[in-house]
């Protein structure tokens, strides 16, 4: 072996040992596939899926007039079943006025403050989750499509770096579990690939509906890393990267997870 070839090989091996291998597109699996038969049955049946209670509430909130403008979501957007079809599949999306991507929850609050002239809904509040679930349900079965143009690329890159960078007292990266060790067990629970296809979703552990940001905070807590306040750009970048990583996978909102 020539010296150059040996050097190249060591560089390649070192690279493989430190950077996580991305999951090939065809081998991606939704968290659904790691669930038990019983939990799958719960998600598949709309009369057994507890998240449907939030969807029904969301339908009510969609039609309720809010704020000093006295407008409901329906006054501008009409029937959500047609106007919101495919919308959740595209979020987080670039917001030109803010020059950064916003997720679906933030988009709802932008509408609330700018169009309805109402106070923004608190993160993880029943109303915000219900509206996000109701809007999300209209995209069920549609493929996730995230724009990756020049405007989005820096944010995607930031999300990618956060996913692959080590953080916290345990010095772990997201990729070490969700790229390198998916399908293995972590304290008895299956490690999924981390594709956010069903958020907001009903988590049996929470006994309620929760957003992707809440789930990310859970992971950060588990890694003993600093968690950011709700709505922080770090979460949106990570959400953006995770959704891009799940591009083409069908939306499952509102999903059920253990």
């Amino acid at each position: 072996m020539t010296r150059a070839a040996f050097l190249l090989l060591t560089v390649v091996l070192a690279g493989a040992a430190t950077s996580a291998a991305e999951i090939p597109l065809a081998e991606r699996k939704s968290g659904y596939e790691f669930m038990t038969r019983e939990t799958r049955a719960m998600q598949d049946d709309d009369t057994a899926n507890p998240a449907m209670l939030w969807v029904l509430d969301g339908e009510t909130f969609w039609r309720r007039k809010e704020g000093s403008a006295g407008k409901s979501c329906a006054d501008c957007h009409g029937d959500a079943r047609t106007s919101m079809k495919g919308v959740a599949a595209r979020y987080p999306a670039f917001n030109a006025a803010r020059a950064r991507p916003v997720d679906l929850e933030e988009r709802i609050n932008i509408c609330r403050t700018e169009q309805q002239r109402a106070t923004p809904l608190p993160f993880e509040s029943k109303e915000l989750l219900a509206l996000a679930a109701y809007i999300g349900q209209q995209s069920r079965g549609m493929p996730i499509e995230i724009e990756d143009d020049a405007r989005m690329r820096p944010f995607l890159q930031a999300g990618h770096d956060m996913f692959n960078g080590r953080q916290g007292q345990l010095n772990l990266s997201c990729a070490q579990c969700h790229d390198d060790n998916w399908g293995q067990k972590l304290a008895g629970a299956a490690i999924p690939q981390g594709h956010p296809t069903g958020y907001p979703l009903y988590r049996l552990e929470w006994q309620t509906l929760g957003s992707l940001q809440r789930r990310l905070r859970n992971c950060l807590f588990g890694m003993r890393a600093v968690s950011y306040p709700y709505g922080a750009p770090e979460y949106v970048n990570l959400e953006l990267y995770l959704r891009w990583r799940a591009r083409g996978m069908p939306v499952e909102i509102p999903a059920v997870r253990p």
Partner: protein
Amino acid sequence: MARALINVPPKAKRGELIEIKTLISHTMETGFRPDNTGKAIPRDIITDFVCKYNGQEIFRAELFPAIAANPFLSFFTVATESGTLSFEWTGDNGFSSTESVNISVE
């Protein structure tokens, strides 16, 4: 009134076994969890569920603190005649919720 989801087949043949599924939104606070100050959060659960078929009781359940939030109950009955299935949940702090659905039996 709490949000509830009921699934009963709208039509059935006489003598057919039908499945009834009910789901209701409720926190089912156990009474054993402490709040941020260490004080126990008072119990707030659904304690009773009754289903009546044309006024006659066909199913009853007692619920306890170990039952998860948003309780889902499913049970079977024989479709005997057209009419109404009524559902009633009652619980702590005067909680009460009722729903009814129609079924046509041929």
